[in-house]
């Protein structure tokens, strides 16, 4: 029999999620588990989870991408403009992801060629894209192109999400590419000295991140009914939070697992949705959300330390006993 060893650190995010579900169910008198609310929950969940599917690649390298919200909004808005002009509604989806992937390509290329830190680089990209979006939105009115009602429906969003999860699971967990991504996060010098093209891997990861930003952009623009300057606002931060809540380390590496991003995405959605359904006013709810997030992160990091200490102790014992 294969012995299954569960790491305490891996189980903590799951426990926190379960506890949150129970607490909100009690506080809302069961309302949070009603089918109406679950439907709403899914709608809130889709953009965060889709976003994290792309960002997890970048995070596994030990890098960050906080440009995805702005990238999503800008790509979808530009694509909608073109679609409205040409009247070819079918091109909206593909055009969005092409634009957003190109922005990812640009970020990745700058990051590798000029060795710019990815946090500051994607922050600059965020500001730039948002600025551009503000300009466009204030000068033209952009509505969802006609004939794209389907894209705004929950079943469509769910279908896109499920297919995306399946593909990302395969690529991230089962292929050479996914393995290399995590190796870069573990020790970039190692994989470089073995003879793997790290630059190509990094650029590809940013393209993937951009691609999923585009997918989010499509679903969100259609749902809102047109481009606004708050489209996908703060999406990048929610996604980052989701990834770290799930227990993935900022250093990336083999701690990056798809299921963790999924759990983290659900956790942050449950918190936001739970606070609303418990009747917290919008002024209060964000503050409470912040406090909750800090508390969860502290708990996760505390247990992480404990687990690490345990490993260190084992290491010492191991070395001594050999």
């Amino acid at each position, binding site marked *: 029999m294969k012995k299954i060893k569960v790491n305490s650190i891996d189980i903590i995010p799951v426990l926190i999620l379960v506890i949150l579900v129970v607490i909100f169910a009690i506080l809302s008198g069961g309302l949070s588990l009603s089918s109406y609310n679950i439907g709403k929950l899914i709608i809130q969940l889709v953009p965060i989870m889709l976003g994290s599917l792309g960002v997890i690649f970048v995070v596994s390298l030990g890098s960050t991408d906080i440009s995805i919200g702005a990238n999503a909004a800008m790509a979808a808005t530009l694509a909608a403009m073109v679609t409205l002009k040409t009247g070819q509604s079918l091109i909206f989806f593909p055009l969005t992801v092409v634009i957003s992937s190109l922005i990812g390509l640009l970020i990745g290329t700058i990051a590798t060629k000029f060795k710019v830190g990815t946090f500051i680089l994607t922050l600059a990209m965020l500001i730039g894209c948002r600025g551009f979006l503000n300009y466009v939105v204030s000068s033209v009115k952009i509505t969802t192109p006609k004939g794209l009602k389907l894209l705004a429906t929950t079943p469509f969003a769910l279908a896109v999400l499920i297919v995306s999860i399946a593909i990302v699971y*395969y*690529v991230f967990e*089962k*292929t*050479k*590419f996914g*393995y*290399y991504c*995590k*190796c870069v996060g*573990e*020790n970039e*010098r*190692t*994989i*470089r*000295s*073995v*003879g*793997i*093209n790290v630059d190509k891997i990094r650029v590809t990861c940013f393209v993937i991140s951009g691609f999923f930003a585009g997918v989010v952009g499509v679903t969100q623009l259609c749902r809102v009914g047109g481009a606004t300057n708050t489209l996908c606002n703060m999406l990048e931060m929610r996604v980052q939070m989701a990834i770290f809540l799930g227990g993935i380390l900022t250093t990336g*590496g*083999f701690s990056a697992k798809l299921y963790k991003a999924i759990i983290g995405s659900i956790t942050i959605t449950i918190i936001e949705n739970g606070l609303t359904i418990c009747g917290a006013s919008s002024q209060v709810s964000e503050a409470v959300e912040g406090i909750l997030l800090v508390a969860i992160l502290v708990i996760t990091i505390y247990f992480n330390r404990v687990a690490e200490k345990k*490993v260190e*102790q*084992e*290491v*010492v*014992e*191991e*070395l*001594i*006993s*050999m």
Partner: protein
Amino acid sequence: MAEQEVVLKIVGLDKSFGITHANCNIDLELKKGEIRGLAGENGSGKSTLLSQVAGLVPIDKGELFVKGEPYMPKSPIEAQKRKIAMIVQELGMVGELPAGVNIFLGDMDKFSKGPFVSLSRFYKEAEEIREKWELPPLNFRRKASSLNVESRKMMELVRALAVNPDILILDEVTQSLSQDNREVIYKLIKRFKAEGRSVLMISHDLDETLQVTDTISVLRDGNLIGTVVSAETSETELRRMMVGRDLSGSYYREDQKETHGDEVALKLENVSSEGGVRDVNVQVHEGEILAFCGLSDSGIHDIGQIAYGLMKPTGGQVILMTDQGEEVIKNPIQSLKRQMAYVPKDRDGEAMMMKSTILQNTVLPSAENLEGKFGYLDSASLRAVAEDAKNQFLIKCTGVTQKVNALSGGNKQKVNLGRWLVKDLKVLIVDCPTRGVDVGVKAYIYECLRKAKEKGIATLMITDELSEAMGMADRIVVMKNGVTEKIISRNEGFDEESIIEGMI
């Protein structure tokens, strides 16, 4: 000579980590001006013993006396107050701070004026210490993380000397140093002795231990087996004490002939580098072990990186012979595809992903070959590769999913080398392959190199250890200041004197 004063006395020291007994009832006396070596295999309790003396590891049981007074250090700071300083095996510096600041981290108050700290005084004082002890020039203003292993070791040495120690503890300090810096350490030790200060040192290099120390204490499984006078013992005798059984005196090649295939496998043509390598021309044949010897600035380490395509040569080229003819090596991506291998010198920092498992580390060079359709990696075949390496190279571990940082130095090196040797190789480049491993693993690594030779693999061995080069190589390339000084064949017989002469 009159009975010398005892500076450190250890009585009945006992230390356990959980169920493992690291030090069992150890008694030890260190005299004023005595240079004491500690020998023992990995895990025999040498480092644990010295870490307790230096206040890095708490003492469970037993008594310590420094110059006759009771001594029970709870921290390195307390040890420093009693003038005991240790340089540890792992590099301990704050990477983002300048090296000069690192040196006085424990002593900040000395440099403070109100809330401010005077940086220039740090550098000045560090420089004074360096000069006082005649260490090579160092740039204290550089960030610690930007220094190479050697400079960092020297910085740590300055840090230890800053407390003006009466007892200096060196844990595997020379293993990461090249010959010229080792000489600096030897000189320092001599001066310590002359000034009536004492040294406690651990080194895996028995030859070095014998030459540098006055006495050697041997540990095995946490017990002190005995203390011998260095001048009256031999390497074989020490090894017998360490292992508790006889190990054959030599683990090197026994033949004295240059033997290899006729075909050239890899050529360096007029290779130069930014680091100072100039116009190096060498060829390595199939089944040949070609060793590169030289001081740290001789460019031998550059040669390895250039040969694998990791470093762009500023002139000349590296040519690999393939079935399709000659091929110029331009980057490591190509080298990997063409069945070449590179084992870097900096094992923990560069070669390994320390926090990952044995499996994740071993499959790295093989992933390209294991890849299926759509980049699919079958976890069963990955596991098979890792298990194969583990069994073939007798890696001591609880399983292939054990993390690499939980392995001993020797076993890490087995992973490091084994993951390449499970592949079908043409060229193997190893940089200091036996650095910091104990005699057992060392012998084993030589055995692996011999097998690789039999298989017809062309090996480029870059090494700091002359005895290793003379023991294993078919030809030795002696380098000095980036230039090939001479190339000696095994047929001529290797003469240590003449090789060293070429190096300096």
